[in-house]
């Protein structure tokens, strides 16, 4: 017993206090990418071609005040391209950053990536996706607790492992009243990981249906949001079925535990402090 207490003393206090800044992450950490389309070279599609998941699209700039004509020289400050990066598809491999000849795409160490709608994950500049809290009625219903049932539907155990890590002494999500529970009947919502394989589709739907309404659905990881690296026309995965509406999207492959925690807390309308 004494030995255990001694060992306990040596372990010290290890829980990460929120909010954290970018300095909590190492230099090479790939957090939220930022885009500066003004750096783009006309006609360049290097990032689009490099991206393994089709996360990047390029459109010509929207006509500003007057449509450009062949005779009017394009102003040098006007972007030749408008780059859109879909955080829901991004697996945070550095291929686009490496491919870009002018440094128009760079990573920050900002871990905050979550959004409430699919569209808010499509970023075009240096701003973080916006995210609104649940409405007041739902927040009142939840009180200070959030109980979640996790369903892995083809997840590689990367996302699952990070969700498990949220329970350890470092991330300790239970200090915010958030917990994973064994039964959907005890849950306020479900957390889905994986691209939803054909063989898990039915089990996912049944788990969702077994969760009492109103229920929250959270998609964690590129796979759950867009099928990530496994997206394919005719593969055995089909994504979260439309009858399961998603309330919170948390990008990453896998998302850092603090990315998940940040998304959950902001959905609950709680300041990270």
């Amino acid at each position, binding site marked *: 017993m004494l030995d255990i207490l001694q*060992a306990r003393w040596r372990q010290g206090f290890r829980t990460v206090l929120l909010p954290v800044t970018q300095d909590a992450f190492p230099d090479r*950490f790939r957090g939220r990418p930022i885009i500066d389309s003004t750096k783009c070279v006309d006609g360049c599609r290097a990032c689009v071609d490099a991206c393994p998941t089709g996360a990047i699209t390029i459109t010509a700039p929207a006509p500003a005040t007057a449509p450009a004509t062949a005779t009017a020289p394009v102003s040098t400050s006007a972007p030749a391209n408008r780059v859109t990066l879909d955080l829901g598809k991004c697996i945070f491999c550095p291929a686009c950053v490496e491919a870009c000849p002018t440094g128009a795409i760079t990573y920050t160490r900002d871990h905050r990536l979550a959004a409430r709608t699919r569209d808010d994950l499509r970023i075009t500049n240096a701003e973080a996706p916006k995210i609104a809290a649940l409405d007041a009625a739902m927040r009142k219903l939840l009180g200070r607790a959030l109980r979640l049932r996790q369903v*892995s539907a083809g997840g590689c*155990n990367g996302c699952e492992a990070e969700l498990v890590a949220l329970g350890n002494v*470092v991330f300790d999500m239970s200090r915010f009243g958030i917990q994973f529970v064994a039964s959907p009947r005890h849950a306020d919502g479900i957390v889905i990981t994986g691209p939803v394989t054909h063989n898990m589709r039915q*089990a996912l739907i049944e788990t969702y249906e077994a969760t009492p309404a109103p229920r929250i659905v959270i998609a964690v990881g590129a796979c759950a949001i867009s099928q990530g*690296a496994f997206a394919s026309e005719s593969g*055995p995965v089909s994504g979260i079925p439309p009858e399961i509406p998603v309330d919170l999207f948390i990008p990453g492959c896998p998302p850092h535990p603090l990315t998940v925690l940040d998304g959950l807390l902001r959905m609950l309308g709680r300041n990270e402090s």
Partner: protein
Amino acid sequence: MSAASRGTVRVRNGGVVALGALPPLEPDEFRAVCGVALTAGGRLVALPAFALGTDDGRDVFAVIANDDESELTVTRTRLARGAGFDALTPEFPEAQAFERELFEDHGIIPVGHPWLKPLRQAHLKTDAAQHTFFSVDGDGIHEVAVGPVHAGVIEPGHFRFQCAGEDVLHLEIHLGYQHRGAERLLVLGSPARRIAVAESIAGDTAVGHALAYAHVIESLAGVRPPLAAQTIRGLALELERVANHVGDLGALANDVAFLPAAAWFGRLRGEFLNLLMALSGNRYGRGLVVTGGVRFGLPSDMRQAFTAKLAETEADLRATAETLFSSPSVSSRFEQTGVVSDATAEDLGLVGVVARASHVARDARRDHPIGIYRFVHIPLALAETGDVMARAVVRWIEVQRSLTFLREQIAELAEGPLRTPSTAADSFAPDSLAVALIEGWRGEIAHVAATNGSGDLRGYKVVDPSFHNWFGLAMALRDNAISDFPLCNKSFNLSYAGHDL
């Protein structure tokens, strides 16, 4: 590549077989050659079938490891859907899952296979209930069915226990829920997509699978990564091993309700993931491995920081392990639980920690060294009892040996280029087959890739260590109390996604 008996070619790990030198044998002859190699101490590493283009035919390859000689024997036959050969399984149980896979994916019939049931339900959109399960009849026998959705935050699988009271007579493990079509994408995807898929075969083994992938591609392309890259790869693979082993020790402590060690190991696992993140930008080492080398190095300031962090963490780790292994309540739960005999481990062809815990001495780092392991040897860790305790002890020994490796290699790290020019690995030798074995933290990872006459990939086979080991878990449960299942399961900690692909 060396010539052996007719219809076989022998290569080293990472070797390439020119298929012109390996004419297909008749199915019966193929079966006989496999039988001879397996009887002579060989071990089945892979049994892939690759399509031949338009017609229905398949090239079936057997890759058999001769661990003592550090060589791999490759042989091939050609079969149409509906054709087959006498099953290897009755004589060599290690072939059971491989032959079920051939049957399910290619319609090839291993004649006389005792349990020829689809392995992954990859081509049926049906649920588990429609399948036949092994069942035991008799007075007082009852059946317990669990999954696919489990109580914890884990991957899906279905378990059927046949019990007499508390005792498990038989456990059938029914998988396939995680099938994502990974091998198909490894053939059809762009190079950037393929490595992303490889890293996602089993997310806790991103480095291990990325390395196996990189080695087969580099072999086919005739590319050799620079020495500094090989060392960095080894560092990442050992960091991955330590992180997972430490996490597993914590999970084992948790399952016997020894919570202090569970909490501390849980935190310590994170320290190693954080080192991987400092190296690669991702806690699981994603993005580090590229074909032809690695993306990131370790400049001297990082080397110092790594060395200091490792020293500090190792001291905490020792104190925690001491607490765990000196607790009588832990020993009484770990010992004699979930025993796998060495004979069973041999018969089933188990690999990795699980095999070594049953005194079966195999470790691809030693037996089939590749990359940095050709120059630096990590002593093999063995235990004898084959129980949960043995699997815990082997992990702990391996943690310590990997830490020694990390310390030494970080100190000696050579400066130098980290990768060959990026497109060098994009064109492949035509009509060839490459094999790479990597000892991941769970055990042997095998990747096999073949090209067609124009040098395009035509087939890709992945064998995760879990593929060999799931049946070991079923055997570990025999005559154990069903309430010990969670503990036994943790002591194996196999991958569902890695099995289902």
